[in-house]
C-alpha cells in the first residue's frame, strides 16, 4: 500500500458504484471522475493497520475483519466484488460467476476464539477431531495420574484395614504434602518430567513442522493469545495431574479419616502452601517446555531436551555438590530450585545449604528466560511450512 | 547377496505377451494389499527394452507397482522379479536399476554434486570414480552449471532433474521414473521429457509413470494402463485406441460457421451426429475416428468454411479409461 491515507471502505464504495454503473448501461457517458470517491478524511492511525488490528486502534477488540485471511494488503483488496452475480444465460441453465468479497460480519469475542484454541488442545486427549495426541502419550498421562494418586490409595487402604502404620505413613502431613508435589523419587525423576516432555514435545514445533501454524496465523488470532493458550492447555493437563491430584489427596485425607473443622484449620495452611508450590512447579515445567518446543522443529528434540534439562542438571548438581560440597550448584537445576522454594513454603526441613531466596530468584530468572524465548520465537515464527 | 537361482521366474503362457528372455521386470499375478485397501490387484506383466509409460489416475497403483519392483514393498501375493531375482529379498539387482521416487524430499543441505557422488559411492565406486560419474550425469540432465549449489536452492525442475541424475549415475539398464513431470513448469517438463527420450534412444529400459496422457504420448507410445490396481491395457497407445474405435469419438472444430460445416459432414457414413455446444464450435460424433480424420480436410475445404482449430476432446486419460472400463463391463 503506497499511500497512508488509503481506506479499504473506499474500495468497496468504488467497486459497488462501478458495478452499479455496469448494470445500468455499458454505454453510459458518465465521466470516470464521477465514480471516483471523495478522498477520505485523514485517520489518526494508518487506516489499514487500524483495520487489521481492530477499530479502536492497535488493540484487538474482536472487531477486526478477516482481512488477514485474504492478503497482506498489497493489492488483493481490488479483487472484491459482489457475490453470485448472474453472468451469462445459456439455454437451459445459469452459470454464476464466483466473485468473492471479504466477510464483513462481526467476529466472536476474543475469549471465544481463544477458548477454541484451548479446547482444541485439551479435548484432543479424549476425542477425535481435535489435536491428535499419540496413544502412548494418552496412556502415559492416564498412568501417571493414577500413580500420582498412589498416596491417597495407600491412605485409604490403611484407613479401611485399620493399619495404623500405613495410615501414619501416607496420611496428610507437611512431609507428605511436599512429597506429593516435589518428591524426587519418583514423581519428579520420572512421572512429571515424562508427562511434560510428551505433551510439550510437539505442541508448537509440530505446528511449524506440519504448517498448521499458518492456519492459526492467517486468522484473526493474536500470536500472544496463541502462545498463551498453548501455555494454558499444557498447564491444565499438568495441573490435572499435579494440582488436582493434590487436592484429591487432601480431600481424601479429610474424608477418609472423617476429620473435623479443627483439623481443617490446622492443616489448611500447609495445603495452601503445597498448592502454591504445585502451581509453581506446573508453571515452571510448562514455560521451560514450551520455550524448548518453540525453538525446535521436530517433537523429539524438545522432549529430550526437557528431560535433559530437568534430569541432567539435577545429576550434574548432584555430582558437583557431592564431590566438592557446594550446595549452591543446585541453583542450575530447575527441579532443585523448585524443591528448595517448596521446602521453604511448606515448611519442611531444608536439604540445601544456600538460602531459599537464591533458589526463588533463580526460579524467576529461569521462568523469565523461558517466557522471553517463547514469546520471541512465537512472534517471529514464519507462517510457512518449514 | 548372490542371486538366488531358485528365484528366477518361471515363464508363463499367459495372454499378455510372450515372455522375452530374462525380462528386466516381471510380475506374475502380483497383488498388494494395504490393510483393507488393494493397491495392486493380480497384475502380470513383463518389460524389457524401450520406454514404457505407466498411466493411471491417482491411486491407480503406479507407485505401488514401482515400489514392488524396486523391493520397497513386499508383494502380498504373486512373484516379482527384477532381472530374474526377487528384489524384496536381494538388493543385488539394484546395481542395474535407477529409481526416481515420487518423494519430493531431498537432502537440501548437500550440493547437487555431493548428493549424486555420495549415492554413487554406494555402488562401490571409489570417490574419484563416483565424482566423475556424478559430474557426467549432472551434465547429462543439464545441471552442469549448478553442481556446486545447494539442493535447497534448486528450483522444482532442477530438483526433479537431480533426482533423475542420481538414478542414472550407475549407468543402469532399467530406469524407473515415478511421476518425473509432477510439478514441473513447461520448460522443465520439456527438459525432463528430452532426457527420458534420450535414455530410451540409448537402449535403456525406461518405466515412466504419469496421470496425464499427453505427457506420456510425447515420450512413448508403449503404455501400460492401471486403474484401481488392475491392469487395464498394455501395448501401443494407438493400437489400443484402434481397438476402441467402435466406441463413439468426438472431434471438436472451432469455426465461424459451424452449422454450415456441420451439414457438410453429415453425408459422411461414419458420422452419426453433429452438435453445436457454442456459437463458434462444432462437435462431430463418430465411431470410426480414423476414417473421419482422413476425410476431414477434404470436407472442410469443400465447404469453404474457415476452421480455426481441431481438437480431440476424447484424447485424454479420463475418456480412455472411460472407454476401457466400459469395454470391460
Amino acid at each position: 500500500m503506497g499511500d497512508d491515507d488509503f481506506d479499504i471502505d473506499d474500495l468497496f464504495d468504488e467497486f459497488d458504484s462501478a458495478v452499479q454503473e455496469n448494470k445500468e448501461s455499458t454505454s453510459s457517458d458518465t465521466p470516470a471522475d464521477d465514480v471516483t470517491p471523495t478522498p477520505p478524511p485523514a485517520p489518526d492511525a494508518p487506516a489499514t493497520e487500524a483495520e487489521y488490528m481492530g477499530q479502536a486502534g492497535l488493540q484487538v477488540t474482536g472487531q477486526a475483519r478477516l482481512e488477514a485471511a485474504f492478503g497482506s494488503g498489497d493489492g488483493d483488496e481490488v479483487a472484491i466484488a459482489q457475490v453470485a452475480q448472474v453472468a451469462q444465460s445459456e439455454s437451459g441453465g445459469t452459470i454464476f460467476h464466483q466473485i468473492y468479497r471479504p466477510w464483513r460480519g462481526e467476529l466472536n469475542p476474543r475469549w471465544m476464539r481463544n477458548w477454541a484454541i484451548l479446547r482444541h488442545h485439551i479435548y484432543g486427549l479424549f476425542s477425535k477431531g481435535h489435536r491428535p495426541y499419540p496413544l502412548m502419550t494418552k496412556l502415559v498421562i492416564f498412568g501417571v495420574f493414577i500413580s500420582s494418586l498412589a498416596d491417597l490409595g495407600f491412605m485409604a487402604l490403611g484407613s479401611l484395614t485399620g493399619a495404623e502404620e500405613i495410615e501414619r505413613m501416607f496420611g496428610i502431613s507437611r512431609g507428605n504434602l511436599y512429597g506429593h508435589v516435589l518428591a524426587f523419587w519418583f514423581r519428579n525423576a520420572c512421572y512429571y518430567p515424562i508427562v511434560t516432555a510428551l505433551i510439550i514435545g510437539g505442541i508448537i514445533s509440530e505446528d511449524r513442522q506440519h504448517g498448521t501454524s499458518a492456519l492459526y496465523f492467517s486468522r484473526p488470532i493474536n500470536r500472544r493469545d496463541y502462545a498463551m493458550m498453548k501455555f494454558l492447555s499444557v498447564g491444565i493437563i499438568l495441573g490435572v495431574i499435579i494440582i488436582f491430584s493434590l487436592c484429591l489427596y487432601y480431600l481424601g485425607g479429610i474424608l477418609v479419616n472423617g476429620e473435623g473443622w479443627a483439623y481443617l484449620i490446622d492443616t489448611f495452611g500447609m495445603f495452601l502452601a503445597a498448592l502454591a508450590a504445585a502451581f509453581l512447579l506446573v508453571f515452571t515445567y510448562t514455560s521451560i517446555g514450551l520455550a524448548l518446543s518453540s525453538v525446535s522443529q521436530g517433537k523429539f528434540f524438545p522432549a529430550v531436551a526437557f528431560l535433559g534439562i530437568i534430569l541432567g542438571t539435577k545429576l550434574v548438581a548432584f555430582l558437583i555438590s557431592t564431590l566438592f560440597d557446594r550446595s549452591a550448584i543446585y541453583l542450575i537445576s530447575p527441579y532443585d530450585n523448585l524443591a528448595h522454594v517448596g521446602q521453604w513454603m511448606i515448611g519442611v526441613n531444608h536439604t540445601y545449604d544456600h538460602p531459599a531466596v537464591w533458589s526463588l530468584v533463580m526460579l524467576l530468572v529461569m521462568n523469565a528466560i523461558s517466557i522471553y524465548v517463547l514469546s520471541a520465537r512465537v512472534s517471529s515464527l514464519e507462517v510457512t511450512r518449514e | 547377496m548372490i542371486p538366488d537361482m531358485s528365484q528366477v521366474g518361471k515363464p508363463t503362457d499367459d495372454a499378455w505377451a510372450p515372455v522375452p528372455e530374462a525380462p528386466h521386470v516381471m510380475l506374475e499375478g502380483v497383488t498388494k494389499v494395504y490393510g483393507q485397501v488393494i493397491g495392486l490387484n493380480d497384475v502380470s506383466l513383463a518389460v524389457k527394452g524401450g520406454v514404457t509409460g505407466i498411466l493411471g489416475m491417482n491411486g491407480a497403483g503406479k507407485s505401488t507397482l514401482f515400489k514392488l519392483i524396486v523391493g520397497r514393498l513386499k508383494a502380498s501375493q504373486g512373484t516379482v522379479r527384477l532381472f530374474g531375482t526377487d528384489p524384496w529379498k536381494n538388493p543385488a539387482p539394484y546395481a542395474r536399476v535407477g529409481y526416481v521416487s515420487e518423494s519430493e524430499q531431498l537432502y537440501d543441505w548437500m550440493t547437487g554434486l555431493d548428493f549424486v557422488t555420495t549415492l554413487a559411492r554406494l555402488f562401490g565406486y571409489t570417490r574419484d570414480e563416483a565424482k566423475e560419474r556424478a559430474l557426467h550425469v549432472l551434465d547429462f540432465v543439464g545441471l552442469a552449471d549448478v553442481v556446486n549449489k545447494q539442493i535447497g536452492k534448486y528450483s522444482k525442475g532442477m530438483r526433479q532433474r537431480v533426482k533423475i541424475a542420481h538414478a542414472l549415475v550407475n549407468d543402469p539398464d532399467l530406469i524407473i521414473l515415478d511421476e518425473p513431470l509432477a510439478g514441473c513448469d513447461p520448460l522443465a517438463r520439456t527438459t525432463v521429457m528430452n532426457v527420458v527420450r534420450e535414455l530410451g534412444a540409448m537402449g535403456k529400459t525406461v518405466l515412466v509413470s504419469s496421470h496425464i496422457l499427453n505427457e506420456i504420448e510425447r515420450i512413448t507410445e508403449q503404455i501400460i494402463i492401471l486403474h484401481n490396481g488392475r491392469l487395464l491395457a498394455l501395448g501401443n497407445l494407438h493400437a489400443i485406441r484402434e481397438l476402441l474405435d467402435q466406441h463413439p469419438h468426438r472431434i471438436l472444430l472451432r469455426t465461424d460457421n459451424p452449422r454450415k460445416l456441420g451439414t457438410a459432414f453429415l453425408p459422411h457414413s461414419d458420422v452419426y451426429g453433429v452438435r453445436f455446444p457454442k456459437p463458434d464450435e462444432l462437435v462431430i460424433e463418430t465411431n470410426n475416428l480414423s476414417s473421419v480424420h482422413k476425410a476431414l480436410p477434404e470436407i472442410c475445404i469443400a465447404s469453404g468454411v474457415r476452421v480455426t482449430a481441431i481438437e480431440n476432446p476424447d484424447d485424454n486419460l479420463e475418456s480412455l479409461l472411460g472407454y476401457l472400463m466400459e469395454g470391460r463391463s
Partner: protein
Amino acid sequence: MIPEQPPDTPMPDALEMQLADARPRFEEAAAQEPAAQAPTGRIGQMQAQAAQALRPLTNTVWSKLDRKATAIAEFTLRQYRTKSSTWVVLGIGLMFVTMVMLFYAEAMATGFDSYDNDGDSEDWDGDGYPTGQERRYGTSPWNADDHPDPETVPPDPASVWINEDPLDFDGDFRNSNQGFDDDGDCTGEGWSDPNSPELPSRNDRNGDGHPCNVYYRMNSTTGMVYSVNGDPNVDEDPDESVFLKEALHRSFLLGFGKVGFTFLLGVFLPLFLATGLVRDEMERGTMHYLLGKPIARAEVLTYRLLGYVTLTWPYVTGLVIITAIVSGLLAPSDGFYRWQDLPLWLGVLVASWMVLLAYGAVFSVCGIISPKYGVFIAIGLGVWEFLMAMVSLADPTFPLTYLSISHWGIEIINCAALLAYPDFIWMIQVAEFHGFGADIALQVFWSPPSAVPGSALASMVVALFVLTLYTVFALFIGQAMFKRRELD
C-alpha cells in the same frame, strides 16, 4: 569439468561413450551365452542370462564394502554437521566438563584444614610446650611451671603435633599387620620415661601378637577389609589434608567417570544423535536414496551407526584426555603429573565408548521398531537408564540393574578403579575407622565390582561382554525389523 552443452542437445557424447564402455560387458555376456546355456529350455536360458548379468554384482557387493561404509559414514557425519542440535549437544557436553573441572581446580587449590585428632597440640598450661611434647618429656601438661628445659629442648610449634602420626599402609593385602607408631606414644620410643603412665598399659590391645600396630582383618585375595583394629595411640593423628585431598581426587575420578561420562554423556549423546539415524530418514522419505543401491539394509543401519561412532568416540576421547591432563596436573602427586590415574582414565574411556555404542544401537533400533512410537520408547528407555544408574550407584548388586546399560558402564569403571588403586577399599574402611567417613564422597561413588565379586578383571570382562551383547542384540533385532519394513 565437462564442457557445457547447449541446452537443446542434452545427449553428451561422453555418456554415449560410457554406454559404449558398458556395452561390451553385456555383449560379452551375450556371446558366452550359447556356451553357458547347455541343454535347457527357457528356464535354463533365463537362469544363465541372469547369472551372466548379475556376475559383476557379487564383486560389487562383497569386495567394496569399505567404500560403501566410508560413503555412508561420511554422509552421516556431514548430516550431523548441518544440524544445529548436534552442536548444541556437543557444546553443552563441553561446557559441562569445563564446569566440573573448574570446581575441581578450585577444590584442589583450596585444600583442607588439618585438625588435631588427639588434642596434643594444645598448650593447656601456657608454658609454650604443646601437650604431646610435655608427655614425651615426662612433664605435666597441666602445670605451667613443669616443662622441659628450654635450653636443651626448645618448645615445638603446635603444627608439629597436629599431624604427627600418619596412616601407614604398605599396600600389601596379604599382610594384616599394618600401621606404625610414628610419634612413639604407644611404644614409648623417644620418650624420656619409657614407663610413663601416659603410655598405654597394654600396647597389644587388638591381640594379634604385634604390639603397637593396626590389625586389618581382610580377604587376602579380594582386598576386602572386614575390620580395622588398632592398638592405642597408633595412627591416631594422621594428616587429614593429605588424606581428604586424595579421597576427593579419587571420588572425582569415580564420580565424574560414572555420572559424567558413562551416564550423562553416555545417554544424552546417543539420545540426541542416534535415535534419528534411521527413523528420520524413513519419516522424511529420503531412505529411498540409500536403499535404492545394491546394499543390504543391515549394512545401512551398521554404517549409519559407524558414522555416529566416528563423531561421538573422538569427541568423548577428547573430553577424557582434557580431563585426564588437567586433573593429573592439579591432583596431589609426587611428581609433575599423576601417572597412577591413567589406567582409571583408560577404563573411563572404554566404558564411555562401550556405552555410547550400546545406547546408539539401542536408540537407533527404537526408531526402526516403530517409527511412530520409537521416540517414546527411546525417552522411556532414557528415564529407565537414569533410574538404574542411580540405583546402581547406590547398590550395584540389585539384580534389576543388570538389565540396564548404565549399570555395566559403571561396573567397568569400578573394575578399572580397583585395578588402578587396589587400596580403594582400604581407604574407605580407614576413613570410617578414623571418623571421616561422612566427609568424603568416596562412599557415594565407590562400590566394589559386583559381576564376579572379588575379581576386578573378571568383572570387567563380563561387563564388556554384556555391553557387546546388548549392542549386537540390538543390531540383530534392528536389522531383522528393518529388513521386513515396507517403505512407502
